[in-house]
């Protein structure tokens, strides 16, 4: 990949594209005289962020906190569940269709119910983040675990490996790159979950600010939240990528 899309060209291009998009946006808003409550200009957004930096960042951190908590629970439980499902074909046959079916439910629609059950506190936010992040993390790991080559099994069994040993020595390391890269998708999902829960039932967090500001037609504030969310999501996914490459170097066939 590195050879095809030359690293140098990419570094030059991405900031350039982003910058020109921002300039174009600013220019169009000014040119067509678009009202602020329809589409604020980038300078409006920056001005809003600098006007309420503490307010925005504390709420951003709150949202991030719940999303990360939901993600961690999703990561741990999907790892545990994928091990269980990989271990027993019987359990997999019985449980997996139920989980897959559950995944088809639009989980945003569950938030009001979660609020009835757990109140307005932090639990609905964590749970929604968890519910959205869980499945995208489970599936790749589980698939990697249950697609070990038949001959690999036979080889291991031929020198006496038990099922548990095969899971520990082969299935888990094999699933690792898939697990780590699914954390990125999971994190995005968790963030969406928390924001939705904050919109439905909270008086804090960026989700709440977006909802309340748009109801007052304070669109620049809503956009500030969106921009902050995107930047943070981008940074965190970059961190996850670096982490992933470091931990499962072998999966990328990187020599020394």
């Amino acid at each position, binding site marked *: 990949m590195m050879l095809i899309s030359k690293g140098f060209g990419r570094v030059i291009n991405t900031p350039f594209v982003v910058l020109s998009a921002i300039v174009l946006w600013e220019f169009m808003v000014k040119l067509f005289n678009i009202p602020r409550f329809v589409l604020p200009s980038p300078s409006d957004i920056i001005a809003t962020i600098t006007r309420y930096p503490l307010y925005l960042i504390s709420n951003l951190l709150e949202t991030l906190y719940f999303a990360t908590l939901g993600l961690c629970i999703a990561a741990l439980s999907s790892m545990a569940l994928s091990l269980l499902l990989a271990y027993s074909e019987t359990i997999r046959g019985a449980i997996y269709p139920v989980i897959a079916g559950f995944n088809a439910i639009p989980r945003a629609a569950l938030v009001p119910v979660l609020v009835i059950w757990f109140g307005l506190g932090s639990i609905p936010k964590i749970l929604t983040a968890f519910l959205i992040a869980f499945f995208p993390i489970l599936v790749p790991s589980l698939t990697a675990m249950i697609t070990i080559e038949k*001959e690999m099994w*036979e080889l291991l*069994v*031929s*020198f*006496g490996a038990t099922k548990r040993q095969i899971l520990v020595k082969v299935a888990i390391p094999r699933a690792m790159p898939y697990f780590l890269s699914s954390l990125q998708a999971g994190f995005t999902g968790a963030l969406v979950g928390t924001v939705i829960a904050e919109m439905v039932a909270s008086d804090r967090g960026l989700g709440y600010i977006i909802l309340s500001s748009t109801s007052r037609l304070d669109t620049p504030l809503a956009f500030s939240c969106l921009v902050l969310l995107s930047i943070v999501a981008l940074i965190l996914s970059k961190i996850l990528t670096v982490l992933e490459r470091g931990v499962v170097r*072998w999966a990328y066939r990187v020599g020394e």
Partner: protein
Amino acid sequence: MIKIETLVKLRGVSVSYRNGRQSLLAISDIDLDIVSEEILAVVGRSGCGKTTLLKVVAGLIKPDKGEVIFNQKMFNGRRRKVGMMFQSPLLLPWRTVLKNVLLPIEVMGESVNEYLERALELIKMTGLKNFENSYPWELSGGMQQRVALCRALIHRPQLLLLDEPFGSLDAITREEMWMLLQNVVMEERCSTVLVTHDIREAVLLADRIVVMGSRPGRIKAEVKISFESPRSLELQYTREFNEYVMMIKNMLGE
């Protein structure tokens, strides 16, 4: 007088695979002895059940009929001392060469340190010195198969089971591996079962060749190869060698 010991005895072994309601007989009524320190080749067309036969010997498949006696003991559980090698090297990409070789030791719960020296010795013997800490994907196909051979031998198995081990290698590498295998097996003094469809490979390496017919898999004939060991690659260009090859080819062709 040299005492010929029988390591594995198969008597009336049949295996059938169930495919839905149908039951397909893979191998039928096989009688076979594997003698200590011999190289036994099993040749046959693809689908003749030679891999199934190998798996029965390895203890991976329990025969539907007949019995397998391993080292004078009726076989029931798993753990028999065999080393296996397949056409694909099946190395774990997150482990170095050395750690791949030591995998069976780890799994058996024995002390890795005790086998470290042996692992390094095997690695040296197979010409992989200085690659101990390389990763499998940094090696060529032939080198990966060498690692697989070391891994098959690390726990000093009495029986080495090879399922078309050189099938995916190029002709030159394959000949190198033939010589390597011959040396290693003589050094390690283990019995070897070599499943292959390469008749030349079988004639060059084996003391005895079992020719299998298909549907259901059964033993058609047994040929003793009377060349002295060790054998050299030049043997392939002698008349006797090619007579053996022709003979076995004809047996398969029927």
